[in-house]
């Protein structure tokens, strides 16, 4: 019995001894070797980067940043629109937003600095776009997969984009440009890098305008005639923008030169009369408030460059105040196509009847026509100015009401031009900038008055309200630099 087992155990013991010897002798070194090799391959193993996000490296990676409309192509200038009393706001809504109420009711006694934590969007949005453009300007030159020409184009577009946002900032948060004092008044912080803790300096208004002009001038040679999309800068957009900037500086010569350059590249006008006729049935149907497709979106023929207002999303346009609608010419098809009077409860307003996208922050041909017209008028070419104005009016005013306008004086011409331009640039920084500019000239300064809840309210042309306080969040969390308010309430 025992004998039967002996050989099994003997064999087993031999096997076991061999295995033990082997394991002790070899396994441990093998394990150690495995550990060492795994160390070596460890770095590569750990370099894996989750998908879905990536580190931009190619020029296309950077170019894609330009297409981020939410970050880079918005100009929410809400408070200026409210101050101008263009858009209709209900009492109930204003009760919700004290800052809105202060601007809408021209309440000079309210300290907007303490309230403006509720609307920081104009500031924050502009600087986030500037940050993207700074990032492109810092990295595009070393990006891969691109020719120098392509890199230069993208960088030129970034320069134009950055300048456009600085223009919004300087016209919203700093005092109006006046050659006499621009070099002594501060504007907004100038920052040229996207790095964390990048330094910035609150430069003077003059320095800021110079910076804007230099950026665009530098960019123009590298800008294409045709952009990849409507948000990409082109030569036409750059000239149009320069025309806008020079006009704001009351430099009519340069404004005119650039306006002509721009119009040479695009002078198409949208025909609102045509548009009105194709939707006449919907528009004229009583008690019907349709949702017509907005013509003023991405494919608007008048676009040089597209930039949204408050929202990048498809939406219904803002409603209009009744007194604002009254400032349109009789028979203005653009008014008829965009708004229709409506009564809801105790409120009456012009209800917006288009939905879609709106180029409220970009530049259109009409604005450049108007710049050209004003420059001509300023230079006393009144007939020339009226011709340019009438070219636009022809596409706006229904034939039954249309008659070419003529003017006897520059002032009369400019009042006509203003009326059309105010309508064309509704809800944009240009409407606000123009008003501020004209307010500095006693000849054109305008005092607003209205009656709300039985109370007469006024907004004088030299009110401090024409400059928006810089958001407290930005002043308190200034980063690498200091910021001071340009207005004290």
């Amino acid at each position: 019995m025992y004998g039967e087992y002996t050989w099994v155990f003997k064999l087993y013991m031999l096997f076991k001894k061999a295995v033990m010897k082997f394991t002790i002798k070899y396994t441990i070194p093998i394990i150690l070797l495995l550990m060492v090799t795994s160390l070596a391959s460890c770095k590569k193993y750990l370099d894996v980067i989750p998908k879905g996000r990536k580190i931009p490296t190619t020029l296309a990676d950077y170019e894609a940043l330009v297409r981020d409309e939410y970050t880079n192509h918005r100009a929410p200038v809400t408070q200026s629109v409210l101050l101008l009393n263009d858009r209709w706001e209900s009492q109930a809504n204003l009760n919700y937003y004290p800052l809105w109420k202060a601007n809408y009711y021209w309440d000079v006694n309210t300290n907007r600095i303490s309230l403006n934590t509720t609307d920081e969007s104009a500031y924050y949005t502009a600087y986030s776009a500037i940050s993207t453009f700074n990032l492109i300007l810092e990295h595009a030159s070393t990006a891969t997969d691109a020719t120098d020409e392509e890199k230069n184009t993208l960088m030129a577009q970034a320069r134009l984009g950055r300048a456009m946002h600085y223009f919004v900032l300087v016209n919203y948060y700093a005092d109006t440009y006046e050659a006499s004092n621009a070099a002594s008044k501060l504007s907004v912080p100038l920052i040229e890098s996207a790095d964390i803790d990048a330094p910035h300096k609150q430069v003077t208004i003059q320095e800021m305008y110079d910076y804007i002009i230099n950026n665009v001038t530098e960019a123009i040679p590298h800008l294409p005639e045709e952009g990849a999309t409507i948000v990409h800068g082109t030569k036409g957009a750059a000239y149009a923008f320069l025309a806008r900037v020079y006009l704001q500086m009351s430099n009519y010569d340069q404004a005119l030169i650039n306006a002509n350059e721009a119009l040479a590249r695009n002078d198409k006008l949208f025909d609102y009369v045509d548009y009105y006729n194709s939707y006449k049935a919907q528009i004229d149907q009583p008690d019907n408030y349709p949702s017509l497709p907005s013509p003023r979106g991405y494919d608007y023929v008048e676009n040089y460059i597209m930039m949204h207002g408050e929202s990048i999303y498809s939406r219904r346009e803002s409603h209009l105040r009744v007194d604002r609608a009254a400032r349109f010419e009789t028979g203005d098809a653009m008014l008829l196509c965009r708004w229709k009077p409506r009564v809801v409860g105790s409120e009456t307003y012009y209800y917006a009847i288009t939905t879609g996208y709106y180029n409220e922050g970009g530049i259109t041909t009409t604005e450049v026509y108007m710049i050209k017209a004003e420059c001509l008028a300023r230079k006393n070419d009144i007939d020339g100015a009226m011709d340019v104005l009438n070219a636009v009016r022809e596409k706006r005013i229904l034939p039954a009401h249309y008659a070419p306008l003529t003017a006897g004086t520059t002032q009369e011409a400019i009042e006509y031009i203003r009326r059309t331009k105010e309508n064309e640039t509704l809800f944009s920084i240009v409407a606000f900038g123009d008003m501020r500019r004209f307010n500095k000239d006693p000849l054109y300064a305008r005092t607003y008055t209205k009656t709300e809840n039985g109370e007469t309210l006024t907004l004088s042309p030299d009110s401090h309200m024409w400059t928006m306080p810089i958001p407290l969040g930005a002043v308190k969390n200034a980063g690498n630099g200091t910021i001071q308010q340009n207005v004290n309430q």
Partner: protein
Amino acid sequence: MQIAALFRSGAERKPFTKTMFIMKFTVIVLLATCLQVSAKVFSQPVTFSGTNVPLKTVFNVVKEQTGYVFFFDEALLKKTKPVTISAKNMQLTAFLKEVLKTQPLNFHIQGRTIFLSEAPVPVQAEQRAKVKVSGFVFSTDRTPLPGANIQIKGTAIGIAAGDGGSFAMEHVDDNAILQISSVGYLVKEVALARLKAGNELQDIKRLYVDESTIHFEVMLTRSADSLDAIVVNSYTTGYQTLSKERATGAFATVTAGSFKQQRLSSLNSLLEGRVAGYNNGLIRGTTSMNGVTSPLYVIDGFPVENSSLSGNSVIENLPGLNLEDIEKITILKDAAAASIYGARAANGVVVIVTKKAKKGKPQVNASSTFTFQPYNFYTGRLASAEDMVEIEKEWAANNPNFQSPNAATYANSMLANNIYYSQGVKAHLDYYAGNLSQQDLDTKLQQLAQSGYHFYDELEQYAKRNVFLQQHNLSVANASDKNAFYVSVTYRHNALEDKYSANKSLGVNLRNTAHITNWLDLEVSSYLQYTDKQEQYFNPLSPGYNYLPYDGLMNDDGSAYTSYAASRLSANTINIINQYKLYSMDITPLDELGLNRGNTKGFMSRSYAKLHVKFSKWLNYQVSFQYENNNDRFSRLYDKNSYYVRNRVNAFAQYTAANGFQYLLPYGHIFNRQTQLNNAYNFRQQLNFDKTFNRHHNITAIVGSETRNTKLEYNSQTQYNYDPDVLSYSMVNGATLASATGLLLGGTFNASDLGSDNEAINRFVSFYGNIGYSYDDKYLLTGSLRWDRSNLWGTDSKYQDKPLWSIGAGWNIYKEDFFTPGLVTFLKLRSSYGIGGNIAKNSAPYMTAYYNPNFQLGGMQGSISSRPNPLLSWERTFTGNIGIDFVLYGNRVSGSVDYYNKHGKDLLASTQGVPTEGWGYSTYTINNGEMTNHGIETTISADIIRTKDWKWNLTGMFAFNKNKVTYVNVEAPVYFLQLDYPDAFPRVGDPFNSIYSFRWAGLSEQGLAQVYDEKGAKVSNTPSALEAVVYSGSKIPTYSGSFSSSLDFKNFTFAFLLTYEGGHRIRNTDLPILGSQYNSLAGGYVTAFTPVNKLITERWRKAGDEAVTNVPKASFAESPGFSSALSTIYNYADVNVLDAGNIRLRNISLAYNLPSYLIKKAFIESARLQFNVENAFTIAADKNAKYLLGGFNRPYYVWGIYLGF
């Protein structure tokens, strides 16, 4: 000696005596014999006669006649004499007894083998001094061993140890040798003479009483048995198993026995109230601001991170397993316990060990529970129909528009545009518009007021059901010397309160351990889980329109109630719908209930293999690999008849002059499918060392490396006009839909409406080791060290090579000579200090951008999602812990006390982006925060009564935790961010997870809410200074604990578990004020008439009320003086921050064990019937707090049956 090789390793290096071998062998055999059901084998008959026959010949005969073989050491036979015997059909055992009665041999039968061993030589009876012998028998982990056998060697004299392992024998020879044994333990021999002489004996400690008494403690070692690694009183870290004596860290254990009295509903429910310091899924409070705060879960040695993707964020889920399989849960709380888990250890670790087969007869267990929760909507807190009608009257009386001469026009216009939905308000408008007479109005209002909680009554009747949950489990286990096998199946079927919400799951757990040779074990395991979840889409409590208690779901005529489009949408919208014949926008809640159900089918598998190589007694090597794969497929068919589809398609109805009218989105079913595909693997190699030098010095050490990879993938796809039968769908043009203008009702379309993908990969490579030294098992020192590297954090070497480490020390005081046992049987002091890490899974050190298509512009758009942060590292939490463990009164009272101090450094804290740098709206995280947690944990458990029929145990737990942010470099840029996102802007000195609020200043004389501004003035507008926002308490309890009791009487067990928590607060979100909602036509906010808290009936109504109430007067958005600030300051006032302290009776149960004489006939070993009530009641400081804490939810009633075969 060859035989010995089979059972002991390293034999050739360390010689040991035959006796030793045989003794150990005997014990194993004895144990096996005891457990084996093999009584019948002894009845084999033997017939044999012979004179002076050599023993070997007899053995041959036995083998031939019975088939039984002998197994013995040849050397034994040398001492034997030839045998003379005459037997006819003698029973084998009797025959053997007869044969061996004069031989120095004993025998034992195991299976078909007869083992021979040396019989003890009878001791010479000699007159010796008699002494009294007494003491305690323990296992090495200090568990008393009642029932252990104490026998005087060579005699039949012996007794069994009593409770607490104590024994006492009188009149014992002072040179006797005691044999102390217990099933499953090695026999220990104690020579009294040596003990008396003062010799030191291993595992024995003489406790001096007097000269005539030998009083000692003896420690039995468990018989070597790698198949049974779970030692009852030990801690499992997942990397190794430590005895309670050797551990220096703060551990807590929960064994299956302690949650026997409850339904195994979720992992959390097993831990809540059973581990001091575990509260709401957190161990010892919050340790991170932006990283993961949940503990790491480890199952059978492997971390299991059941995370999933939700958008770009990673959600941590509890791991899946059959809860019935849990044998034991060990909670690793401090650094010494947990830091071996390195970069994921800071939040503590929950180590789960599942059941294995035990040797002996096959174990079969089955259980079923049925749980019932009656449906209930708690209306006690809600204003009734009558209250609401009264408020609507107040609204009408205060609406200035009704006072104006244009009231009729106004009322008509509001009706035409359907600005208000509520029946009461519409009745008022109808009255002012001239459509209703005063009498009709009154009748209508009265009728509404009488309906109580009509909506909720109908909800219960038609839309909800009682919750019914079933859970069934069957497990089978079998083990032999060579193999242990365990399988369990759990099936759950839960019908939830929503009529169309239910889920089913089937979990199968397989586990096999093969003892291939005595130096090689292989363990393989696989857990598979199938789930099928139905999810109701339509929520009748938010049906898509506003309702009030007087509304309903059923019409008087018994047909389902429909909310007509014409009653909600403006006349203009209805015109458009009619003009273009758009799809109906009516909502019939009872028809919608069953539509658009979501279905998730899940399959999860987790498998591992572990190879355990024993090089020698003191060195072994383990290599293991685990692979997890989770696959969830979600699908939802939005039915074309549902409101969702009708509304969605209408949203893309377009009219343009060029194309006329068209639907851009085809009408039909919409099919959405989402898949989550997660897999993870973990590869680990480890060397274990355990050796005692010179009897006093013991060193244990492990060293190893680990590689982990987790990959999460998420994909979502939506198909339009889907035909579930033909499996076809229509192509839609995302770009056209997204950039469409002139949409009649306005809709938005995003890239994600077609589909989206997300992916996350986490990789870790780690090297770790720990070492423990003990001197005489009295003094302990431990240390651990771990390096982690991961793709998650920075390239900067500042942090990369910094190891995570811990040190610990322990002192088994009760082992000291000076320690006088008696009352205290175990006493240990331990302390530790070390670092645990923590990570944020979606942070990266690089500047990253995400890309998605831009439908409007074409091409891809990119956005910077995170700015470069090369300094990103894991968070480090330094934990110091000091604790005492004690056992009193022979294991009747046990407990522990711990004090800890955790200091988190390099915590990922938010920092506010600089607006001028373009990041004004963003906060991003950098390693820029510090916080501390310190606290005390106490557990005490006592067996108050221990008699044959009665047993009563009481256990109490108390944990105190105080959290404080000690450093952070961020300040809320605006006051409301401090209120809304307190965790993004923690304040130094306050706890993390704080609630901030305005200081309530009571109501003004006009009944308006007032708070104090930063200067201490009472204001009714929003104070915008940050200083006006003050700390109002922590959301995390500062103390928590439980009180549980288990009372056994004969076959009955009555138990309950009560938990309490307090010192924390909760913001009251169920306020007695009306809200307002934006109405685009009205161009602003109008009063929202929706169900509201009943306390609104106590609102301010007249001057003077401010002295007795804090509920502001009803303010309506339509009033000229209305300001949104009034509700803002009331919402955020500290008067609405409630004490969240509560006591909950989590579980109360009564179990009855059927007597064995009843069930034996059915071949059932044990049968238990149990009835539980879960969440029987909640006591809270405040009625509203109780509501917010779910204290009004009905209890769960559970019936369970548990069978063992």
